[in-house]
């Protein structure tokens, strides 16, 4: 879809990252490095929670930056820079997850329904961790349980949750990143939250040691 001049001007005025990206378009290496410095940790975090492996997450984040560099000459600001970057990240992560699923390196059976009972992975993981809800968890243990709860979400729910919670993207922006409608994102997030609550509630009721 063509981006109008007024849209491009609006985003250029509002978003300092868009201004940096326009300088990257003009082959400014310092601007590229500044963008990278701003987003690298967040991107690696996002990828780590998406694919579950730190080494792979770093490779994928580097791939995202490389794609940004390669796409620089075609860049026209049609959204916030972060929205554009997470769209690339979403594509990169989806491809990687598909590849992993084909090679069966990880169990990526996601659930489209909100029923946790449909996903034996989560229940198994929780049982294996030994972190049973009957006792008080310390912070590290709670962090582990939360990690398991997030990894038990399906890929789309996980992506939407991470973008919403940690990148503070609105439903509309998440919809743009994931190429869906805002109402679909609304449903997706509510199902994701229901799933998270189902796994986490017993632990949260017990409370955590600090």
């Amino acid at each position: 879809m063509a981006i109008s001049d007024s849209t491009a001007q609006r985003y250029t005025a509002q978003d300092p990252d868009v201004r940096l990206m326009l300088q990257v378009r003009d082959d400014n290496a310092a601007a590229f490095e500044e963008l990278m410095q701003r987003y690298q940790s967040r991107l690696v975090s996002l990828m780590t929670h998406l694919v579950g492996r730190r080494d792979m997450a770093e490779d994928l984040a580097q791939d995202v930056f490389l794609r940004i560099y390669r796409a620089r000459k075609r860049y026209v600001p049609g959204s916030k820079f972060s929205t554009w970057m997470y769209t690339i990240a979403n594509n990169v992560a989806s491809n990687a997850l598909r590849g992993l699923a084909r090679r069966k390196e990880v169990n990526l059976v996601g659930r489209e329904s909100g029923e946790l009972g449909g996903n034996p992975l989560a229940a198994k993981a929780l049982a294996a961790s030994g972190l049973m809800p009957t006792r008080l968890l310390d912070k590290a243990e709670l962090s582990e349980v939360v990690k398991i709860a997030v990894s038990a979400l399906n890929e789309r729910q996980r992506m939407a949750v991470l973008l919403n919670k940690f990148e503070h993207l609105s439903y509309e922006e998440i919809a743009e990143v994931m190429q869906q409608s805002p109402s679909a994102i609304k449903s997706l997030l509510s199902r994701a939250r229901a799933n998270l609550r189902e796994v986490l509630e017993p632990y949260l009721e017990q409370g955590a040691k600090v």
Partner: protein
Amino acid sequence: MNPSQQQLERIVAYLDGELPAEESAQVEQQLAADEQFRQQLQGAERAWAALDQLPMASVADEFSRTTMDMVVDAARRKVEAKTIALPIQRRQRGTAIALLATMAVLLGAVVFRVAWQNPNRRLLADLPVVQHVDIYSQFRSVEFLQELDRRLSEAAPLDSAEGEQLQAKLAEFQFVSAVDNREDWLESLPADDKVSLRAKFNRFHELSIERQSELRELHRQIEAADNRGLLLRTMFRYQQWLNGLPQSKQFEYRNLPTSDHARGVASEMKQAASEHRFEMTAEQIQDVFRHVRPHIQKVVRKKQKVFDQNLSKMSPRERRHFQSLSKHEQAMRSYQLAIKDSPEQMREFIDVIAEALPSEMRDTFRQLPPWEKFNLSRSWFWRARSQPGNDRRSVAHRHSGNIPEQELADFFVELETDEKERLLALPREEMQRQLKRKYFGRGSRHDRLRRSDWDSRLPPGGPRPDGWRRDRRDQSGPPPRGLRGGPRFDGELDRRPPRGVE
């Protein structure tokens, strides 16, 4: 979609702030009325908040280095591919446009590679954050600046000199934020500033990777804010004020929750701005006291007999000390003793001072509450007492806030007992700071809290009756040594004024 799913969507959208105002109001009504609905919402909120426990990755410098290597490598391959293709393209198409486009890509890639070789590359990429690392480290979020700006703009507008200074800083911030300007700016820096920038760069890289990322994000948020000009002005004002604060106090503020942090800082900054109106140089104080001196001499002459009697009652040590003072200082001390128990004479003294003040200060001074007039007069008196011709105290030092320890100790001795006890209970650094503030006539928070008490005890328009007097407990001498936070008071016994002179 079943009703429970619909309800959950509403709850989630409400929590995410994605509901229109009307629907939000409906949710709030339901929350107030429906216990089950409330529990459902709280459950969803708890689970969402638990995600904060998810560990976040931090990325070492190695990551950005290898990524940039990959990018530069991609650029190199592009150059090679285009270079190989160039003769073919020329032969096949023979068009100038294709040639130009190819050359542009080549040039871009080469520029990228050259920039990557720049030894200041890391500094340039983080320059605005590095340049402001000290102030960025003092607060956690842009909300702090928003809140501080709101509170400061209500009551402490900028004066024109301060405004100009901040404007210059703002211009520099904006200049350095633009990537293209950075190299030139760096080049134009004087050698001293380069050294200082290098130190900041080192400080920045001594921070944890997570903290570095937080500071970058803070900078990004400030840059993206609609009211960034205002926020930056507030930030620079805050920085200026912080410079006069001891490390321990800075630490204390940094660790407060955002709203408490902003409230505390705003309150102190407003107080400082109000005090600024009565700041005088040592020369100005001497001018004021040139006018006050005839009054002082008159009072001292009248009380001469009493002074002589009391001098003979002093211990030999006290007498030796008193006699070692300059004539000027002897007169000033005698005057101080003469008025210390007389509210009427104190009021007269304050009136004489008010009359002698520079015209632009006089009316404002007269409108101050008595306790504040007293604080200021006492401070000016102290600063004038040892001048001129006293080589122990440097005027320049005093004006810069670098008061000789002995003078501060003297000043401390003459404070009231409860005030001394309060100061002694503070950490040493904070005690010194508050004592200096008092010395310069600046009220502490404690003074402000007590102002109604003071005002009620003062005669109308006059200072508090026991303004300079030390009570019986004080007669025993200096504050105890070795107390936590106490300053050193070497030889303070000798410095106390003679006792019992009326």
